[in-house]
């Protein structure tokens, strides 16, 4: 079978390569950057690129969730935390050797796990592009809030309890620091 390059030069594939380059490049920069706010900005671009990948696969709801939860809320929270904690420090501290070792171990483990999965399962050709089925919002809503088989009402409610616990925890922490003053 001869490899015809032109066949692969579709808009979908070009966009996939561009978005992957953004995700990987910005992910790498986010890790390598010594300035903490720059790292957060690169992380934001990475998350944004992932939202683009979801859009490419026609997962519009997932893309919007990715944008509003990760790119919007999480990164804004991160930046606020840096503003409040770091006292405007431009450079991050040097990481100690033991921490570097743990980080290296974790990343190697991650790579091995991914490779094992890829070699065991093989690369599944995903249905990408305009031919991919568009997931109906109705279906997502029913699946999230249904109590039947393969539906996630219990998990949905459990996660809301978790969030409530987080909010109460935040209030407790905030009021305690006031009394100390």
């Amino acid at each position, binding site marked *: 079978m001869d490899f015809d390059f032109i066949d692969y030069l579709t808009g979908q594939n070009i966009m996939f390569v561009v978005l992957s380059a953004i995700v990987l490049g910005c992910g790498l920069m986010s890790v390598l950057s010594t300035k903490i706010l720059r790292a957060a900005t690169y992380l934001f671009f990475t998350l944004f690129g992932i939202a683009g990948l979801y859009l490419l696969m026609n997962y519009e709801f997932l893309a919007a969730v990715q944008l*509003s939860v990760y790119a919007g809320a999480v990164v*804004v929270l991160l930046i606020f935390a840096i503003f409040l904690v770091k006292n405007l420090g431009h450079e991050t501290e040097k990481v100690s050797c033991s921490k570097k070792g743990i980080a290296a171990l974790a990343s190697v483990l991650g790579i091995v796990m991914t490779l094992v999965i890829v070699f065991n399962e093989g690369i599944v050709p995903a249905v990408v592009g305009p031919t991919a089925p568009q997931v109906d919002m109705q279906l997502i809503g029913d699946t999230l809030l249904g109590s039947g088989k393969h539906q996630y009402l219990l998990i949905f409610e459990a996660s809301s309890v978790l969030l409530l616990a987080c909010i109460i925890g935040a209030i407790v922490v905030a009021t305690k620091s006031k009394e100390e003053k």
Partner: protein
Amino acid sequence: MDFELVNLISWIDESLRDLCGDASWAVSLIEYVLIAIAFLGLYCVLALILILLERKICADFQCRIGPNRVGPWGLCQPIADMFKILLKEIITLKNNDKFLFFTAPFLILAGSLGTFGALQFGKGLVGVDFNVGIFYMLAISSLGVIGILLAGWSSDNKYTLIGAMRSGAQLISYEISAGISILTMVLLGGSLNLTDLIEGQKDSWYLFQGHIPAIIAFIIYLIAGHAETNRGPFDLPEAESELCAGYHTEYSGITFGFFYLAEYLNMFIIAGIGTMVFLGGWQPFHINYEWASGFNELMDYIPSYCWFVGKVFMLVLLSLWVRWSFPRLRIDQLLHLEWKILMPISLVNMLLMAGWVAYIAAQNN
């Protein structure tokens, strides 16, 4: 006779298809570029119009004449301002993070343009029509918050930092009640798709279909949306008397111009979302009774884009009216208004709307 712009667009599409033959990718490419140019052009022209409108109306409120030298009635003033801002020097600071400093204006512009592209300007005049359009608009607008925070921090100046923190807190807070009031209308419309939402308002706008909950939601949306544009009486992030110009103090030339553009267009976008969700988008005003059929037909003669632009500018004028009439709030008053007044009301209001929707469903069965 039909004056819809969608006819012109389909004519362009057909002639491009004839011209390119079977190279359909070329048609798509040319059309994407054309649409991008059209949106960017519209974005800039609207900014010029809005700036002139604001200056004229502000002048009227303060019993002045306003710009009156450049062109007839000062109509060319924003164009002259545009050239001035393009020619100005972009001043770079010494000890700041230059990368973030110059990324921030682009982020703000990108967030604003991303939202602008999802507006539905008329019948068939849609940039992106997502399945979850209204959710996408709320999500993509969060880019602006990050842009503001980065701008304030990378200017390395305590005024800009305080301005950015205030602005961030304000935007995040008011996004909640604006989001909830839009969600209330999504409950009524039963869809997140903007095309479906507007289609559902063919006979009567959601503002009238939803009765009291819709009116409460509309008022809350107007207040919260106005606060989200960072304009008076909610303009603490750039309170001149306290913070110079807030987060964009250190910017000059066209980098400042980007903030300026985004601020004015955000006003248009907030009004546009309000129009689409509450006032029927580009749908003409109809009275849903038998005796008004003649009136309804008359209203149909007005092209859809005129309806959209007319309604949006009505909301923009309301926003300007508020801006030049009320004094600025303090930061604690601002957060009190959102967290202790607007948010509880909008949550209860959503319950009310759910009850109303259930009542309609019961009536129909």
